[in-house]
């Protein structure tokens, strides 16, 4: 099966949406070929504005356009969208609750060869901390397409985390269950609950195959919406599972693992292990080499489960 990047799905979905809505605008900061935001120029060239290499201005321009009754998608690499323009997102978009969808690609270390300057491992943490902000990290291209449609329909500021590299199909096209704020239980198992987001969902599913061979049958959840996190699902899983393993291509500080821990520790304390990047910057390398070196493969998930099962 072909691996498709979530950013490809973003570009294609924007084409569909822009064609039907002349109040939809797309801004990009000189990366419209990479983020795929530029694909919609074929159908709605006058609804795409290149802001040049000036992310801070782009975000506040997006705010001004949204304050004028438009739905605005603003794209760049996740590092620059959320890092460079953090304060514009906070003060000009989130505080006034404006209808801007920050759809940022090249998140995490699977950016690969560009190295640490372009590999954000803290974007979820940054965006999750902002009041009014919704945070989504889709697992594959099919889910990304649904995520983009869902945030388009949802009034208010949203952050959608997209990747550079191709990912396996977790879902079948046209048959993706996707409700913002509701995690998807992909497999019902017992004792161990593996909660993943983004490209780590495919790794979690691979880990499940291996664990099953060893007599362990974990539950697998695609927690595509990191904020608001699906508390109801987590609390319900806590009734029947004793170990939670969170998996994310992000720092274990402030990301999915933290969001899950915040619920468990307050509502249903259970043992939790975090698979993620351990307070480190990335480096140049192929995505596969980096995932292996930074502990983000199915094998790492298997080991985390086995080591922590009682």
């Amino acid at each position, binding site marked *: 099966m072909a691996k498709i990047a979530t950013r490809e799905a973003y570009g294609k979905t924007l084409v569909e949406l822009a064609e039907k809505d002349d109040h939809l605008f797309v801004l990009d900061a000189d990366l419209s070929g990479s983020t795929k935001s530029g694909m919609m120029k074929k159908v709605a060239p006058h609804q795409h504005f290149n802001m040049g290499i000036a992310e801070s201005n782009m975000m506040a321009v997006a705010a001004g356009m949204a*304050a004028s009754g438009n739905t605005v998608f603003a794209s760049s690499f996740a590092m620059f969208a959320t890092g460079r323009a953090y304060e514009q997102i906070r003060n000009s978009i989130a505080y006034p609750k404006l209808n801007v969808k920050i759809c940022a690609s090249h998140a995490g270390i699977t950016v690969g060869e560009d190295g640490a300057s372009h590999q954000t491992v803290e974007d979820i943490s940054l965006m999750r901390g902002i009041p009014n902000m919704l945070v989504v990290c889709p697992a594959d291209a099919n889910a990304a397409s649904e995520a983009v449609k869902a945030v388009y329909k949802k009034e208010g500021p949203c952050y959608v985390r997209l990747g550079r590299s191709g990912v396996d199909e977790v879902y079948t096209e046209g048959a993706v269950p996707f409700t913002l704020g509701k995690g998807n239980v992909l497999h019902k198992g017992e004792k161990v609950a593996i909660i993943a987001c983004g490209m780590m969902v495919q790794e979690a599913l691979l880990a499940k195959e291996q664990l099953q061979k060893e007599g362990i049958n974990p539950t697998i959840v695609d927690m595509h919406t990191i904020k608001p996190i699906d508390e109801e699902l987590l609390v319900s899983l806590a009734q029947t599972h004793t170990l939670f393993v969170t998996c994310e291509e992000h720092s274990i500080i402030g990301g999915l693992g933290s969001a899950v821990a915040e619920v468990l520790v307050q509502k249903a304390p259970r043992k939790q292990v975090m698979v993620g990047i351990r307070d480190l910057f990335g480096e140049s390398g192929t995505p596969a080499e980096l995932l292996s070196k930074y502990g983000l493969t199915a094998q790492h998930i298997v080991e985390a489960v086995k080591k922590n099962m009682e």
Partner: protein
Amino acid sequence: MLVSKYKQHAVNMRKNILKMVTEAKSGHPGGSLSAVEILTALYFTQMDITQENLNSIERDRFVLSKGHASPVLYAVLCEKGFLLEEELCTFRKIGSRLQGHPSMRMLDGVDMSTGSLGQGISAAVGMALSNKAHQKPYRIYTLLGDGELQEGEVWEAAMCASHYQLDNLLAFVDFNGLQIDGNICDIMNPTPIDEKFKAFGWHVITLEDGNDIEQVIQACEEAKTIKGKPTVVIAKTVKGKGVSFMENQYTWHGVAPSVEQCEEAIQELEGGRS
């Protein structure tokens, strides 16, 4: 006749600015007082804002990029009758719609939430871009501080406005020469301001006296005739204008007067000097 009417509005606004910051025991009087004539000219002679279209985007809009001058915005909204004078005394207090820096979600008539310098002009660019894209005739106004020009984002926005030929955008620079730490030229010199905007492709109008409402109105009229580029009005103003002990003193950037000082200032304003 008209000009004397505007002068009375300006006096009323100055008094309200002083009462607000005195009652709040904090706020920014200096840069609010310097911008009174700019806002008076905009809200009384240029913008088509009314009680009926207050919450609509189908009208001219104003973004206070120098959001710390919120008292002058609240004062003009009050002077227009959109805000009761009684509410002004809630400024900066818990539960108030009159936040320290303006919030569009709390107070009708505030067209953009601002306060973090450099961002308001970008938002104004976004509004002007949207009006262009939808072929709407409304104009977008914004007011920048001169110290605010030290923010790099201002120049990103300036480049963008010129690139997209936003002739429906008029920016004012409240050129009072002072910022919170001192003289702008000593802190981080942003001059020559006119040549910078010219180089960025803007039509530049320089006002000898930005506290002269007739000059401000004239500049607004000239800006409407300029096609294919945005206009900036660099208005030389006096920080603390109208209150002799505040005028040209950077120490009055972000400090509230005492009750006695406020009374003294109001007496001076009522004495006809403005």
